[in-house]
């Protein structure tokens, strides 16, 4: 698809059937795309078509449907390879989501590399999915998890990071964009600094891929992961990009069909490339849907999306800052369109329930980032997260609902 020449948010909203819904009789103000994004009609159509016109299991069949299904599935892999600018198709592994992708790397790379006392460097901005898998493999191997601190604005401290990189560091795993407070992390600098010491880097791109162009070769990332449902694709699908040179050495993660070369009870040998890491029937139709979602994003244009979202972010930040008793958590210079906030004396869960009655969907809680909540010494926040289909009306509805909350609890 060609990039649209001008960005028309109302046209985009019409591509998403969910916006025909009302919530408690109100217009839907969906500000929870950071948790999961809505799906455009083209993705829904692709999913339905894949099941109703060309469905069969992939890879193992010579019959027509199996061949068509395989072409569509592998075509999605190529779409994603091109989108991330990976060097080869072998470097694109389909997973269930970001969480599975990180567990795969932690277990497989960790099993191969970690010795007692080795260090794994994370940051205070990480999602639990980029913390707990490392803790599990650390426990098994005797490696140690360390976390790079942030400043009060929520910015990753490169200088501290540089001091933490030692001979013992075996991997750095950091998020590209914080899901809880929106900070854009300087991943290029982090990768360069780590590589200067021969340390591998995993980037959690879950919150970056829907909002910005990512070129894994330009970044020189060793591992880059994201999840399909946040980039307007189906649930149940994610992507692990990993350099070939690493995949070749890494042991398999799960065993099963399709990832083997030859199986006997005495000895089993494994497939190569992405196959080694895709055990069992993959999420076929979900991968196809994700490919179409990525095509859709490209048809809108990530540059257009970024400009639009940044303008929403400015407007929302301005409007919300102006409300009494409201504190925005996370004020990094580089931020994605996420506004996390608290209201004095009113608990986020109560806020969530009350604004919901006005049709406003925001997330309240710790956003799977408890260490970050501990850093800010709050149990939870209210988070409004924006996507390409949000407009200024959404911001206005949010602001009105915040005012209503304060009214209610006065």
């Amino acid at each position: 698809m060609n990039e649209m020449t001008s960005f028309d948010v109302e046209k985009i909203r019409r591509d998403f059937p969910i916006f025909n819904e009302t919530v408690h009789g109100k217009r839907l103000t969906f500000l929870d795309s950071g948790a999961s994004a809505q799906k455009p009609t083209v993705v829904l159509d692709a999913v339905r078509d894949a099941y109703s016109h060309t469905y069969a299991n992939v890879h193992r069949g010579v019959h027509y449907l199996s061949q068509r299904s395989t072409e569509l599935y592998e075509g999605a892999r190529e779409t994603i390879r091109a989108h991330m600018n990976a060097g080869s198709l072998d470097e694109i592994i389909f997973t269930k989501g970001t969480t599975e992708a990180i567990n795969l790397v932690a277990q497989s790379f960790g099993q191969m590399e970690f010795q007692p006392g080795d260090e794994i460097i994370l940051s205070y901005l990480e999602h639990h999915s980029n913390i707990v898998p490392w803790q599990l493999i650390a426990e098994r191997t005797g490696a140690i998890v360390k976390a790079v601190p942030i400043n009060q604005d929520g910015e990753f401290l490169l200088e501290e990071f540089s001091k933490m990189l030692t001979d013992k560091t075996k991997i750095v795993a950091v998020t590209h964009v914080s899901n809880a407070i929106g900070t854009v992390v300087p991943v290029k600098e982090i990768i360069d600094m780590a590589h200067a010491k021969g340390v591998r880097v995993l980037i959690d791109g879950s919150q970056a891929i829907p909002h910005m162009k990512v070129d894994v070769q330009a970044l020189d990332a060793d591992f880059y992961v994201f999840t399909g449902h946040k980039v307007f694709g189906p649930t149940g699908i994610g992507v692990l990009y990993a350099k070939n040179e690493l995949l070749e050495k890494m042991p398999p993660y799960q065993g099963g069909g399709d990832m083997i070369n030859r199986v006997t009870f005495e000895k089993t040998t494994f497939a190569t490339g992405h196959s080694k890491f895709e055990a069992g029937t993959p999420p076929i139709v979900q991968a196809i849907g994700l490919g179409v979602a990525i095509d859709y994003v490209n048809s809108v244009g990530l540059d257009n999306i970024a400009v639009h979202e940044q303008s929403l972010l400015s407007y929302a930040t301005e409007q919300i800052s102006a409300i009494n008793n409201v504190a925005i958590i996370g004020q990094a210079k580089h931020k994605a369109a996420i506004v996390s906030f608290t209201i004095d004396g009113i608990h986020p869960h109560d806020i969530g329930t009350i604004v919901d009655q006005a049709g406003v969907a925001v997330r309240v809680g710790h956003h799977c980032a408890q260490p970050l909540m501990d850093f800010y010494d709050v149990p939870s926040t209210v988070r409004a997260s924006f996507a390409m289909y949000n407009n200024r009306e959404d911001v206005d509805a949010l602001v009105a609902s915040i005012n209503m909350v304060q009214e209610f609890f006065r």
Partner: protein
Amino acid sequence: MLDDLKELYQEVILDHSKHPRNFGKITPCSHEGHGYNPLCGDTINVYLELDEKEHITDITFDGKGCAISTASASMMTDVIKGKSVSDANTLFEDFRSLATGEHENINAGEDTERLMILAGVKQFPMRVKCATLPWHAMHTALLGKTEISTE
């Protein structure tokens, strides 16, 4: 819209959440229980003092919670104070079944009305756990355990 909300956040609930009764810690106490809700990070701790006849002579709570869990804790401590352990456990069951929608009505004597008010939360399924958190903490304490997580 506000009607629905008013059903959940009735005056008495707002009042208990803003001015919680029995807030604080009993030290030392004979029983304590800590309720943690991993969804929101909230914690409610319940402290109880029992006499030799298994009567709850004193009960207090502290911790961090939303309006619903705070009001629930506050109203619970009011209701439970002076009851026997076995009555407390019955009330726990009564309230749990009301709040989760298992039962429509209960008969808890003079406490029925207060429990019914709190149970308005069942219209808001994602908030049921906020209301039951302090009750679980109390129940756990009486069982002689100390920690409970609800999800």
